[in-house]
């Protein structure tokens, strides 16, 4: 059935209308409606992925017009994979968000779910579109919805969101400027079309400046090192359900956009031989990894610590993409999936702790193993994946990134990866220690007394998605060679050796 690609967008879009209209009268219906919409979207995403893997890339012409003149949806294995990740993570968070939203955003439930599903539509649109300008419009939709969602938090959220708005707009306008320069030199907006024209003008400076602006736009959106100022404040002050949704998806989709720009609009030999940016970008990635991990060490608030870890993970992906060899590319694209799952799992755990104990500072984890065993069980899986312990998927993305770094001789990047894994190990051991050791009270627990462990774990509607993502981490780890050979291998751009 060739209408699959557009179904991914139509399902959440029409749910958004239903939510606005119905939500006004009966807010209770919003959450199930969102889950149904996202279910439809993720099923069609999975079907698209299956179709793409079996029979090669799909090209869907919007409005019936052929590509350079109309807008085209170009779906190959890479963006089908990211589509599946985005829609399934959003589905998990939609199921998870029921209780925290009721508790934190009592009055604005229908608004929240409308913005929630429009953000997912925006992200899905960014991932699937094959047209440079359409990507800008969807970037703006995703950005606006995330501004509104984050601003739903209280007090300090407004100032954090205002900074996010300013830097987000600067990023989007840089992207628009880049597309403008491309339009001036190539005359077309379709990514693949641009890709075919760029090699012939590789000498011109306008193409170089266009690449500079596109990259600056992407890096601002994904919060790479020098441009990461807005991310920690914005994601920490956002309500729990919002940070569970925004943290795993926004930055990963921007990394995907960077990959799309580097390897579809431009070509491998343009990025790695015509311009000599590789050392600069590798340096940025290394600094991002080290800075993110060290700042995470210094945090008391676990949610803020996780946001700094996101900044470090971005360093992984950018470094992987700019290594310039096949296993670096595999590592980067595999890490988009792995990191999405890891971040959603850890943020859901923090969300459950905030839901149960009001706050997520490190002291609030005290005695969590005894009172919230299931949540902490999933936390251990997520932590293991973040550290890079084998059976989970975090290990395999580190494996590819490290072998890529070894092959291309970027030892600084390799050492940064190992150092950040060790720092992650220290971070999570510290939390496991607090959770494992002292009972909920502060004084020294008498080891021999059988303190009855009051079982006060979070409700099943929060535990099920949490465990689904934790087990998905394991499954992705075990089937990683399947993912790499069947999905990523055929998509590796030609020039990468």
């Amino acid at each position, binding site marked *: 059935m060739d209408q699959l690609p557009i179904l991914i967008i139509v399902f959440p879009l029409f749910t958004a209308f239903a939510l606005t209209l119905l939500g006004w009268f009966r807010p209770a219906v919003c959450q199930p409606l969102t889950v149904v919409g996202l279910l439809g979207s993720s099923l069609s995403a999975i079907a698209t992925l299956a179709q793409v893997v079996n029979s090669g890339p799909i090209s869907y012409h919007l409005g019936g017009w052929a590509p350079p003149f109309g807008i085209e949806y170009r779906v190959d294995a890479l963006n089908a994979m990211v589509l599946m990740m985005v829609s399934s993570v959003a589905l998990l968070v939609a199921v998870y968000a029921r209780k925290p939203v009721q508790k934190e955003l009592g009055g604005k439930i229908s608004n929240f779910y409308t913005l929630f599903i429009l953000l997912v539509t925006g992200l899905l649109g960014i991932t699937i579109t094959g047209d440079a300008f359409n990507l800008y*419009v969807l970037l703006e939709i995703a950005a606006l919805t995330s*501004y509104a969602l984050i*601003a739903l938090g209280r007090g*300090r959220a407004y100032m954090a969101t*205002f900074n996010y708005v*300013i830097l987000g707009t600067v990023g989007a*306008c840089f992207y628009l400027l880049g597309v*403008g320069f491309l339009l*001036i030199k190539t005359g077309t907006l379709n990514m693949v079309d641009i890709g075919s024209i760029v090699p012939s003008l590789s000498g011109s400076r306008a193409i170089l400046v266009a690449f500079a602006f596109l990259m600056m736009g992407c890096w601002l959106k994904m919060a790479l090192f020098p441009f990461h100022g807005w991310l920690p404040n914005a994601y920490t*002050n956002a309500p729990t359900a919002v940070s569970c949704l925004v943290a795993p998806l926004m930055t990963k989709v921007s990394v995907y956009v960077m990959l799309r720009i580097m390897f579809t609009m431009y070509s491998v030999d343009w990025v790695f031989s015509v311009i000599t940016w590789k050392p600069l970008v590798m340096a940025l990635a290394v600094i991002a990894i080290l800075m993110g991990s060290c700042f995470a060490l210094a945090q008391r608030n676990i949610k803020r610590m996780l946001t700094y870890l996101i900044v470090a993970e971005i360093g992984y992906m950018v470094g992987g993409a700019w290594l310039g060899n096949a296993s670096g590319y595999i590592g980067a694209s595999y890490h988009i999936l792995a990191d999405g799952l890891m971040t959603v799992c850890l943020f859901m755990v923090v969300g459950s702790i905030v839901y149960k104990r009001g706050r997520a500072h490190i002291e609030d984890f005290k005695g969590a193993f005894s009172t919230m065993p299931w949540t902490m069980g999933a936390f251990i899986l997520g932590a293991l994946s973040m550290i890079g312990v084998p059976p989970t998927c975090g290990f395999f993305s580190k494996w590819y990134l490290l072998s890529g770094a070894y092959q291309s001789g970027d030892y600084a990047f390799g050492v940064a990866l190992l150092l950040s894994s060790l720092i992650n190990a220290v971070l999570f051991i510290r939390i496991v220690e607090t959770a494992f050791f002292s009972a909920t009270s502060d004084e020294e627990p008498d080891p021999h007394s059988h303190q009855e462990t009051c079982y006060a774990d979070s409700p099943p509607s929060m535990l099920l998605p949490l465990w689904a993502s934790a087990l998905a981490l394991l499954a992705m780890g075990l089937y990683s060679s399947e993912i790499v050979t069947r999905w990523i291998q055929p998509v590796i751009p030609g020039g990468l050796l």
Partner: protein
Amino acid sequence: MAWVEVHYNYLLVIILLMTGLWAMIGKNNLIKKCIGMCIFQNAIIMFYISMGAKKGATIPILKHVPGAHGHGPESYISDPTIYANPLTQILMLTAIVVGVATLGMALTLVQKIYREYGTCEEDEILNCMSEEQDHELPLQDELKA
């Protein structure tokens, strides 16, 4: 001077870009940041429109062949050089609408910040927040009811 005469539209765009960018990041007052944002977006809109302009071209609405009144495609002049470039104008329609939406959102946030801290100056807000941080009660955090 011939060089300026040929590229003066890009020069204007660059000047507007620089002022907009500087105002957005450098200015202290939040409203001035929003104004800077508008200047920045309008500069890019001007860049696109100036890219699509042609010397001596009219608006891209097809004109009748002189004397013909039918509605078929043959009775309209469709030579591209006499009409301005429609594509860039459409893209900029979208950019204007996006500009309005972002400005609306930014002003809403400024209003909320003003309601929260009583001032629009960024430095005053920051030390308000840092004061708040110091005497923060142990449990009073992002979930203060």
